[in-house]
């Protein structure tokens, strides 16, 4: 099972991101589950959502405690919330920022995780260019697809088009592809490609 936790703020589409990821996995014929951390949602408040992807039916409905992948939509959360709680040593981290991982000031935290699995992506900037609005979801998920191989870019594009038919969907697909290209393939992705 591959478990993802997404951190952002109310209004940024944290819940939608988890749902899109689950739909992409579903399109690939896998079992997937997406759900928010439930609360009195407010614009700007820290929000968490979750996604599980597996080849078998998923029975548990508890929050993801030990994620294999983290998506951080809002970089201002880095020093406010314990974002890395439970992340497995082999886990992936994707941060929405134009800065590099080294510039984020994560300090000793970086050493705890697999260096090739920490990545940043200027998703908000890509969204501004493609959509004219700061909605980073599609770009972040495109980058996450490239970083982790959890879902394919094709499946993600289909999920985006299903959710946003027409012009808006197409622009989001372009944003996802652009962000995907900007990510160096991780070792696991390379081995997956080699095996495939």
């Amino acid at each position, binding site marked *: 099972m591959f478990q993802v936790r997404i951190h952002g703020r*109310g209004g940024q589409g944290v819940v939608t991101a*988890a*749902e899109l990821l*689950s*739909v992409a996995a*579903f*399109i690939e014929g896998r*079992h*997937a*589950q*997406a*759900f*928010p*951390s*439930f*609360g*009195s*949602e*407010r614009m700007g*408040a*820290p*929000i*968490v959502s979750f996604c599980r992807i597996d080849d078998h039916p*998923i*029975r*548990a*409905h*508890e*929050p993801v*405690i030990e994620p294999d992948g983290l998506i951080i939509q809002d970089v201002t959360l880095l020093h406010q919330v314990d974002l890395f709680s439970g992340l497995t040593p082999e886990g992936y981290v994707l941060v929405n920022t134009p800065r590099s991982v080294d510039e984020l000031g994560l300090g000793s935290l970086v050493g705890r995780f697999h260096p090739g699995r920490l990545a940043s992506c200027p998703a908000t900037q890509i969204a501004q260019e493609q959509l004219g609005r700061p909605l980073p979801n599609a770009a972040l998920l495109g980058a996450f697809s490239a970083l982790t191989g959890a879902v394919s870019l094709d499946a993600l594009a289909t999920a985006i088009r299903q959710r946003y038919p027409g012009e808006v969907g197409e622009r989001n697909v372009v944003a996802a592809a652009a962000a995907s290209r900007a990510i160096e393939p991780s070792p696991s992705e390379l081995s997956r490609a080699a095996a495939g």
Partner: protein
Amino acid sequence: MLQQVEGSRAVAQTVAACRPEVVCAYPISPQTHIIEALGASVKSGSLSPCEFINVESEFAAMSVLIGASAAGARAYTATASQGLLFMIEAVYNAAGLGLPVVMTLANRAIGAPINIWNDHSDAMSVRDSGWIQLFAETNQEAADLHVQAFSLAEQLSLPVMVCMDGYILTHAVEGIDVPAQSDVDAFLPAYQPRQVLDPDTPISIGAMVGPEAFEEVRYLAHLRQLDALQLIPAVSEEFEAQFGRQSGGLVRAYRTEDAETVVVALGSVLGSIKDAVDIRREAGERIGVLGVTSFRPFPFEAVRQALATARRIIVVERAFSIGFGGVLSTDVSMATHDGGSRLHTVVAGLGGRPVTSRSLDAMLARAALDDLDPLVFLDLDRDVVKRERARLVGTRPPEPTADGVVGWLGTASGGG
């Protein structure tokens, strides 16, 4: 069709496929997405003929449905928590009048302190009302149980409540095979009411009944619930024949064949329990799970049979009776009182606290060592309890506990 869809949406689509003629509800989380989607279907005309009636309260919602059902319409609502409490007088009336209303209860805790998250306190508060209460383990089952609920309600002339865990199921997006219209039409015939309020041939229903007959009326209601014990499995089998999958029934046993320990529960927590039990099975422990789908009527015989080999019974409950203990535990205990097994109540997940496989496993490990108390509160913060108890010593009048506990934790509620 198999879709990756939110549980609430799947339930709304399924209810629409059951062709209700009157939908009436008052908004309350976490059922809101269900009624919103049904309202949109009525407005767009995709669910037709159907009247969506806006009302000022849950009490009005159930009262309207009593009228609609008595006039021969297939009637549906959804609510949760305080909303259910606010309609409770009418909830009892719908059962007493024998009206086949179907209601989704998106299970949520009851205040005070106010809490919008999941537990089963709301369902437990109406367990004696005469409604049939079915608990969904998964979103697939939540959708499927609604089709069965209309069938059961109309065959028995009894209202049926489908309980699904608020947020945990209602807000989870999963692969759900939403029952197709053609299958639902083949399974569920149009509603043929046994009695209809009609101005042209006036009758009155809901007569006053005095001491000379009230006990008989209540006993007959009990017998009808016992009839449901036969009908629920039959409808579940018919459903499987039509839809090709198992859903519903009275109870569902998992790896109980030779089990010495059996964990009993209602609703979605069964998923994490099964995960925890699988791990312990691999380590050689003889442990299984019993999911109770039909909470009312309570299937004593089915529970007794499923727990026949159990030496240790652990009932995991998302509710409890303050000053007493487990609610489901009491029923299970009645079913197994002569079996020589030891029963533990594990209260878990109150007010939306996650029930994790990790905590369940730690609890089951203690049980395996015969080190589990008869009444356990899973993941209870004993330090906070101790500090709050100490603070209250000698204070008169005592200050509100909820505010004290929140103060010790240094948090203001709000989740998110």
